Every structure is written in structure tokens, then in C-alpha cells.
């Protein structure tokens, strides 16, 4: 077999242009864990633009002034599907006042629901949450004598992810604890926008080091200042 072709290069997208793509009310999957491995420039551009009403799906809402916390402070988040809001008192206040809807999901369930959305599975069967308030309103399935919750897949209109390094084809590498939800969210956004720290030529990331294949990435943000 001869393969004459190969996949097209990405063009680097300016961060303000990337923000312009995202319509009011979009469902955004946003990588990061307490603002570590979060697409910070992308978030700043969304705050600068000021269009909101977003449903954000993320591990947490970080802290005021950091990562997703900036979207919350700017009032751009209508609903948050997250596992933890304990370090962001603004999220708690907005939830109590009814300004923001918050759907709390166990962390392992959240990442599997996003994975299920990304890899085409119909749902997740997990014992996590059985016998707790998480069970409310959900179908349970008995399998070989054990009870599991049927948790629905999650997909986003956009996945906004952070990466250590990208090549021109969009292949991504992540660093240490900045992996977190990013590689999984790259599977589950209808459009995937990646914010790498560094962009290197094709071939500079060996095939075995690629964690997210470039075919999943729609837009690469240009290198930061």
C-alpha cells in the first residue's frame, strides 16, 4: 500500500477569533483541575468578549481570579456540571441565589460520562453514588447481583483544552497533573480548540508520545506572548 497523502496542517488561530466562534448558550467542556491545565488565554478572551449563558462541564470552578473562576465572576456561566465547588465561594453564592444552576457529579463518573460521549457508548454503569443523593431520578441496572447507576453520556458544543505541546497537525502532549480532563474532553467536543504552551514542527512529537491525535483537534491557538 502506498500512501501519497497526509493530513492537512492546522493554521494557528488567534485567541480572540477563537472566542468569536463560540455562540451564546453553548455547552463548553473545559479542561483543568483547580485551574491547573486550564486554557487560561481562551478563558480570558471569553471574559473580554462578554458573551455568556454557557453551560460549562469541568472538574471544578477553580477559585475567583483563576481559570473557570473568571467565567463565573464575569457572570457568563448559566449552569455548571462539576464535581467540586468548595474553593469558589462565588459559585456557592450564585448557586444559592439561583443565579447559576449547579449539577454536582462525582469526579470519576463525570470523566466517564464525557468519555462515553466521546467514544460513542450509550452510558456509564457505575456503583459510585448508589444509595446517595446522586442516585435520585436515575435508572439503576442490576448486573450479576450488584446495583449500578446508569449515567448518561456528556458531549459539548466545544471542548476548550490546554496542552503542554502541539505539532502543526494538532497532535497533543500534556504534562504531569495538567493532563486531568483534557485528553478525555478532546474526544467529546463537536469542535475542539486546543491551547498549547508550545507549538513544534511535525515530527517533533514522536507517535508514541502523542496523547491526543491531531485528527481530534479543530483549532490550535497561536502561541502566547
Amino acid at each position, binding site marked *: *500500500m502506498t500512501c*501519497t*497523502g*497526509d493530513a492537512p496542517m492546522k493554521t494557528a488561530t488567534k485567541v480572540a477569533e477563537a472566542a468569536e466562534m463560540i455562540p451564546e448558550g453553548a455547552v463548553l467542556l473545559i479542561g483543568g483541575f483547580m485551574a491547573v491545565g486550564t486554557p487560561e488565554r481562551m478563558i480570558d478572551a471569553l471574559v473580554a468578549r462578554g458573551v455568556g449563558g454557557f453551560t460549562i462541564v469541568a472538574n471544578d470552578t477553580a477559585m475567583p481570579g483563576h481559570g473557570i473562576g473568571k467565567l463565573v465572576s464575569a457572570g457568563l456561566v448559566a449552569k455548571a456540571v462539576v464535581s467540586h465547588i468548595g474553593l469558589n465561594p462565588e459559585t456557592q453564592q450564585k448557586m444559592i441565589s439561583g443565579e447559576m444552576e449547579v449539577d454536582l457529579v462525582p469526579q470519576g463518573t463525570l470523566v466517564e460520562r464525557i*468519555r462515553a460521549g466521546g*467514544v*460513542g457508548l450509550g452510558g456509564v454503569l457505575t456503583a459510585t453514588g448508589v444509595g446517595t443523593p446522586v442516585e435520585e431520578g436515575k435508572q439503576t441496572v442490576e448486573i450479576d447481583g450488584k446495583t449500578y447507576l446508569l449515567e448518561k453520556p456528556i458531549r459539548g458544543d466545544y471542548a476548550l483544552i490546554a496542552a503542554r505541546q502541539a505539532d502543526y497537525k494538532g497532535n497533543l502532549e500534556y504534562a504531569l497533573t495538567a493532563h486531568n480532563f483534557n485528553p478525555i474532553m478532546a474526544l467529546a467536543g463537536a469542535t475542539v480548540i486546543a491551547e498549547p504552551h508550545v507549538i513544534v514542527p511535525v515530527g517533533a512529537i514522536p507517535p508514541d508520545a502523542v496523547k491526543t*491525535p*491531531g*485528527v481530534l483537534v479543530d483549532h490550535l491557538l497561536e502561541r502566547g506572548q
Partner: protein
Amino acid sequence: MNAKEIIARRVALEISDGMLVNLGIGLPSMVANYLPDDVDVFFQAENGVIGLGARPPEGMEDPDLTDAGGGFVTAVPGAASIDSAMSFGLIRGGHLDMTVLGGLQVDARGYLANWMVPGKMVPGMGGAMDLVAGANRVIVAMVHSAKGAPKIVPECTLPLTAARRIDLIVTEMAVIEPTDAGLVLREVGPGVTVEQVRSATAADLIVESDVSEMPVP
């Protein structure tokens, strides 16, 4: 030009820039030979690479880099290694733009059977069921008849690969598109008449006025 080359050349025209494509083993894998130079695509080998490349030079083979048929291949610059969970995650999750597969039978509903002949040949489905259920576009590339017996039939008698209508059938005699209304004859092969296609096809064909001859560049 033999039947398989006609089919491979015609299928190659369905592939466009930027696609992620999976070619089945055998005839479908020939399609890669006929891609125009200016079409940039990534080929997936479901056993573990995105960016499948040509056979390596003699003596440069790597036992840890093969295609799904077990043949030595290369990886293009920008290729990515993937494990089987990621590979089939891409397939099932709607990330694969097109797959080209061989067929034993396709029926009037557009359903494909290509993984076993009960009592005779039971190779197993391998990745075929996931590919047909999951790929955005499924093209069946096969010779029109098997030892004189039509392979395009009213209803598959062999076990189905998926209860999903495939998108296009390409044989050396015809390009046929399964639709809500039935199988529509879109093109005839080089020098083939509509009547010849009809008589080699066991399923009904819808023939509209604009049946053209297959381009085989």
C-alpha cells in the same frame, strides 16, 4: 484494467482533504494507491496507528509497526500511536470520516453482511461491526458477483454486520446508493450497460435518468 483496480480507483474519488479514513484489508486497502497527490488524509489502521504509511524499504521493517492485516507499514510524519480502546473510541465515537470495507452481500435496505458464512467460513467480525456501526460514511467495495451469483440481494441471507444502511456500494459494474426508496443506480462501470447491471443484481434497482459512466481516473 481489472475489476479490483476499477473499484479501487473509483472509491479513491470519494476521499477528500482532511479526512480520517480506515481501509479494510484486501481490496479496500488498494484504494490508497490511487489517491491524487494533492489529497491530504490520515489513514487509520485500527490495530494502532493514525497516519499509516507505505511499506517500508527492504530491511527497514519494524515488527512493532504493521497494519491490521499484519503487513509491515510505515508511519507518516505526524502519526500517532493509539491503543485499541482509543482506536475503537475514535471509530464508535463518530471521529472516523470514512471506512471502506469488503462485502459478501449487501441488500435492498443497504445492510451489509461481511463476516461469516455459517458452516463454511467463520473468520470473526474483527473490527467490522464497530466500523459499520460507527463510521460517519461506510463504502462497500466489492466485485459485483461471486462465481456468477449476485452479491447485491433483496435481503441478506448471511448474518448482518450491522443494522445500519451503508452509504455507497462500488463494484466494477456500478456505483449504487442505498436510499429510503431503495437502491439507486448512480453510475455504470466502463462499457457496462444499465441492463447488464440489472441482470447481475438480484435486488431491485432504481434507475433515474441521469446514470453516468463511472469516472476511473
